[in-house]
């Protein structure tokens, strides 16, 4: 593995999380969904939102009576901003970054424009479409903007609600699990299932939060991005690309791998992807790879595509804050090639200081976000 370099300017400012929110099939709001995710309560059911009879697989994790993507993104942003004690007057100079599949039309205009108008925030600055790492890519840019002094506060929103087009593409590509369950890291894993996922996070410079008297929920201690340079869609089998992203995040955070107390893994139940992630963790943690608790919460909420990375960052922050690490749902048969300390059976109590949220996507795009206790 190529040695990563020291990232980021030495004078970088601390980046805090001061507000967050998540929506999954379990409900709206981080306080609502986190207990279900932590307990490993999978939310998959037969799709009734649109016709799936012609498809091979008929299951996904859907929020009953979900609104439009605009409605749900706006609700999530408003809840996150509420937690961060922001209002329109204080948000006038904030930056809003959005991670979605496209700037789709809505009755109120393009999604990006309608969202900022609905939330009373400035116009969306940039729209990320980097598939399953779109949200984490936006977070990394947000952190860079804050750390470098270009912005004091950035709101990042991301979302995907299961719809017919992507569902049909994933089904046609045989990426969905024929057995209707998501089994990350399990020897009998058969693939992914899609799920609703919307999230919003308020990132803020420590000076800005202190000046407003707002409590930090967590520190975004590090972030890293690297590519596989390997294949159109398949991950690099040796995990070197994801490992470089993790090393980058750890270096930014100024900590060693042995200080990481939990990894929220990307694993979505795909045979090749989960194995590549195991290899990446083996490269980073070395002989300690079996000592750090790991779980992929996609086994509970499904794969939310462009919404997934930000959703999983929220889950990771909440796990760190609560000291309760989410169960690895869907784990049925041990994989002899997987040496990880997966969180089995029950949530694990652990007073951790640092946690990683990992994501990988088509095109060999990898991201790692390092969260520290506030």
């Amino acid at each position, binding site marked *: 593995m190529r040695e990563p*370099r020291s990232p*980021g300017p030495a004078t970088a400012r601390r980046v805090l999380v001061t507000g967050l929110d998540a929506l999954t099939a379990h409900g709206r709001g981080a306080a609502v969904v986190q207990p279900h995710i932590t307990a490993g309560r999978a939310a998959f059911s037969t799709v009734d939102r649109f016709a799936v009879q012609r498809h091979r697989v008929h299951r996904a994790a859907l929020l009953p009576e979900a609104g439009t993507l605009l409605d749900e993104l706006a609700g999530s942003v408003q809840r996150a901003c509420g937690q961060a004690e922001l209002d329109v007057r204080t948000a006038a100079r904030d930056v809003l970054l959005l991670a979605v599949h496209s700037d789709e039309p809505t009755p109120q205009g393009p999604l990006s424009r309608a969202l900022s108008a609905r939330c009373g925030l400035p116009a969306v600055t*940039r729209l990320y479409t980097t598939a399953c790492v779109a949200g984490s890519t936006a977070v990394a840019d947000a952190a*860079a*903007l804050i750390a470098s002094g270009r912005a004091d506060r950035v709101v990042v929103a991301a979302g995907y609600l299961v719809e017919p087009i992507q569902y049909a593409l994933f089904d046609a590509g045989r990426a969905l699990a024929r057995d209707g369950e998501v089994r990350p890291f399990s020897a009998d894993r058969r693939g992914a299932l899609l799920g609703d996922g919307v999230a919003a996070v308020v990132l803020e410079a420590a000076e800005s939060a202190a000046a407003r008297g707002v409590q930090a929920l967590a520190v975004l201690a590090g972030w890293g991005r690297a590519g596989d340079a*390997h294949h159109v*869609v398949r991950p690099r089998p040796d995990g070197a690309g994801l490992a470089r992203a993790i090393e980058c995040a750890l270096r930014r955070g100024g900590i060693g791998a042995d200080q990481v107390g939990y990894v929220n893994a990307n694993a979505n139940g795909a045979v090749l992807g989960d194995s590549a992630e195991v290899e990446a963790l083996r490269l980073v943690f070395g002989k300690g790879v079996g000592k750090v608790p790991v779980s992929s919460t996609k086994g509970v909420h499904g794969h939310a595509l462009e919404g997934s990375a930000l959703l999983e960052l929220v889950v990771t922050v909440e796990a760190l804050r609560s000291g309760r690490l989410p169960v690895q749902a869907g784990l049925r048969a041990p994989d002899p090639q997987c040496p990880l300390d997966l969180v089995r059976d029950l949530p694990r109590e652990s007073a951790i200081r640092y946690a990683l949220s990992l994501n990988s996507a088509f095109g060999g795009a990898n991201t790692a976000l390092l969260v520290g206790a506030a």
Partner: protein
Amino acid sequence: MNLVLARELGLSVLACAHWPDGPEDTVTPVPGFILSSFQPLVVEVAQRCLEQRAVADPAVRTGLLLASARGDTVTRAAVAAALAEGRPVAPLLFYQSNPNAVAGHIAARWGLDGPVVCTAPLGAGAEAVLADALGCAALLIEDGDADQVLVIAAEQAEQADQADQADQGDQGDQGDPDHAVALLVAPAAAHRRLVTRERRDQRS
């Protein structure tokens, strides 16, 4: 104009290519990508740009930033049509369900192992799209995850059924044929200073 934009962001342009490059220009099909002109267009302009670079240094981390206001509209329309008519969706279309896939093709072909980022810039017009893409690339380089970035801005010709959506505005160059530009950028020799809105130098 591209050079001016890059220079303003503290970047130097190591190589540059456009498509079309003349009235009779063509695009080479790319095995594995079907129906849509988007992926071959992106590959073509990337190849023309990277062929101009000096010998690649394996120690240099090159990121890839693909910007497109509208993205691959043909693939989405093809899937929608298949669903509406009750036809099966071609399995190969899964591999072009998002812009990352063609970025991965280029990264693998040319050994670009820096970050892969795809954006849908919100400004109107090719210049605004490229400006946003270069700004994103400059941030990647300055933040330290990439030494160079291959920036590609690509738009397909507007489809007839997009006319209504185009009325919502800011969706790129409506009515233009397929077009793309690729720039390989690196930090300019004189490093740009980081200045906050309050004009405070963060590196002093």
